[in-house]
Every structure is written in structure tokens, then in C-alpha cells.
């Protein structure tokens, strides 16, 4: 039961019940295809919002973070067994696709849906 574990594991999280600002979370981020150097073959859209995940993974992985069991175990290993084993990382959990209108090398115009292009949520794993 996580209650028994948390009472035994010291950490900043125990002091605050809510999420701290530096904890793993989704950060909005927008670029233009011009910045990526792709504007000479991408017609639309002009702007692209990939977002990104950043933050530390709390010692106790709340249910909302959708972390797999392995992440909990890796945390405990880092804390109780071997600190050279890294804590779980804050990475995207869910993605959504993006539609792109582009010009191919032979001049054809292509509408294409690319999967996993926008991070929609984050997890620790």
C-alpha cells in the first residue's frame, strides 16, 4: 500500500500535498516551420505546437501521472538500493497527430496526417 511506503520515504513531496511548479508537467511550445527550415516544402500549417515535458519526477508517483508500475519500482531502487540507478524521466504520455500540406520533390502536392506530432500529456517512466 503506497501509504505505508510514503510514510517511510522522506522527501519534499510529503510536506506539500499539491503539485510543485517544478514537477513533471506539459509545457506549451510553438515553432514555425520556417524556424525548422522546412518552410520550403511545407505549405500548411505555418505554425506548429509540439509542446514538451519537463520537471522532476516526485518520489511518490501519483495516479494522475499515469506512470507504469515499473516507474514506481525504479524510484524505490534509486532511493533504497542504488542511487546510480536514475529516477524515472518526465516524458510525453499521450500524443495527437498533425495534418500537413506539403510539396513533394516531384512537384506533387500531398496532404498527410503524421501521428504523434504533438505532446498532449506527460508521465514519469
Amino acid at each position, binding site marked *: 500500500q503506497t501509504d505505508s511506503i510514503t510514510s517511510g520515504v522522506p522527501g519534499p513531496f510529503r510536506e506539500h500535498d499539491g503539485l510543485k511548479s517544478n514537477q513533471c508537467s506539459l509545457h506549451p511550445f510553438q515553432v514555425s516551420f520556417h524556424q525548422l527550415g*522546412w518552410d520550403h516544402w511545407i505549405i500548411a500549417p505555418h505554425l506548429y505546437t509540439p509542446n514538451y515535458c519537463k520537471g522532476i519526477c516526485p518520489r511518490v508517483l501519483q495516479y494522475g501521472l499515469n506512470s507504469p508500475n515499473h516507474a514506481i519500482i525504479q524510484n524505490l531502487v534509486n532511493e533504497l538500493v542504488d542511487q546510480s540507478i536514475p529516477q524515472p524521466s518526465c516524458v510525453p504520455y499521450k500524443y495527437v497527430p498533425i495534418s500537413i500540406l506539403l510539396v513533394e520533390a516531384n512537384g506533387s502536392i500531398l496532404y498527410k496526417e503524421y501521428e504523434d506530432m504533438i505532446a498532449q500529456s506527460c508521465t514519469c517512466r
Partner: protein
Amino acid sequence: KIGQPSNALMADAPSLPLIRELLEGAPGKQQRKPPVLGHPLRYMLELYQRSADARGRPRENRTIGATMVRLVRPLADVARPLRGPWNIQTLDFPLRPNQVAYQLVQATVVYRHQLHLARFHLSCHVEPWVQKGPTNHFPSSGGYSSKPSMLYKAWTEMDITQHVQRLWNKKGRRVLRLYFMCQQQKGSDILELQWHGTSSLDTAFLLLYFNDTHESVQKAKLLPRGLEEFMDDDSSLLLRRTR
């Protein structure tokens, strides 16, 4: 690596699928062919706006029915000698192979059914070229469903999926040949008609609709038999143990 050309940047990580695809598909700046302007580009922009929102997110209610649509330009337009009231332009469309993971689900030829050439007002339609027997003669296949184009009143969209699919599975170089046939509306002979002033892009272009079979194949592989029908969008939920 600011300032380096983006292609060089991408070369560092060829193993990532998207980047590899971009390396193969994206034209380099110097190689870029002039963009297809005019009706084809406007048609694709309209199709894009109907299928994706301003941020590029695919619309939930999109009716496109495919994850990839390619607009193909005709290779050449050859005006055939006059024969009776008809004037015929031969249009050849290259059917280039795709990445393996895409399957052709629809093919539509979009053409101008009303044409003004010089002082002539013409009505036109398209006939796929079908080889019948050792001597190929003028096709009269018909039976293709047509509808007014979503973009221009003077244009028509004709569904030629079955015809193209027969060609699609052939080996070697595949070219779809269409006849673009015009008749002066009053039915009299057309004299001195100057086709050559008309670019084939002004008369017809081909749309090929593909679906990405890769994802569905992967999902089918991962799931034990009999579970597929329970599969919903959140497939990873099905595979994870609840805590």
C-alpha cells in the same frame, strides 16, 4: 548546430522514422520543383482547411476518409488530330509507388467540364483509356460516378478507383492514361482549335487517397487473438495492468 542546413541536422538521426521519411520525401532547397499553382493548389488548400483546423489538428468531423491524399499532375498532354465534333487531349499520370505501409483507397480525376478556348465554348468529359484486345481502340467504358467539384462550379470529380486499382497492382512503370474529350456545345465541328495554348493543369488533375495500414497492422499483431474487437482508441490502456 544553429545555422546548419536542416537536412544536415536530420542526417544525424536517420534512425527516427519521421526524420528518415522527411529525408527521403523532402525536396532539398535547391531541388525544389516550382509549386503547383492555380486550381490544383487551391483545391488542396481547400481540402486541407476542410480536414484540419488552423493549428493543423485533423478535424474530428473530417470526411476525407484517408490519412494521405496526393495530387498528381499529368506528365504530358498530347492533342490528337481532330475527328468529327470531338477534340481529344491525352493525359498521362505517373502512378509512383508509395511507402509499403500505405494502401490506395480511392482515386478521383478532377477535370474542367466547361472550357473556354479562344471564342469556343466547349463541354468536356474524361474517359479512362482501356486496352481492349491487340489493337487498342477508342474506349467507351463509362459507368464512373461523377459529381460537381467541391471547389469550382465548372469542374467535375469522377471516381475512377476501380480502374486505377487494376493498374496499381501491376509491376514496373505504371501510367494512368485518360482522354480529355471536348465538344463544342453546339455540336458543330471544331476548326482551328488551339489546344496547345492550354496547360494540362488547366484541364485535369488526379487525386489518390491512401490509408496508413502500418498502425492497424501493428495493433493487430500486439493483441492476442479475439481481443481486437474490444480495442478502442486507448489501446495502451488495454495492455497496462491496473494498479
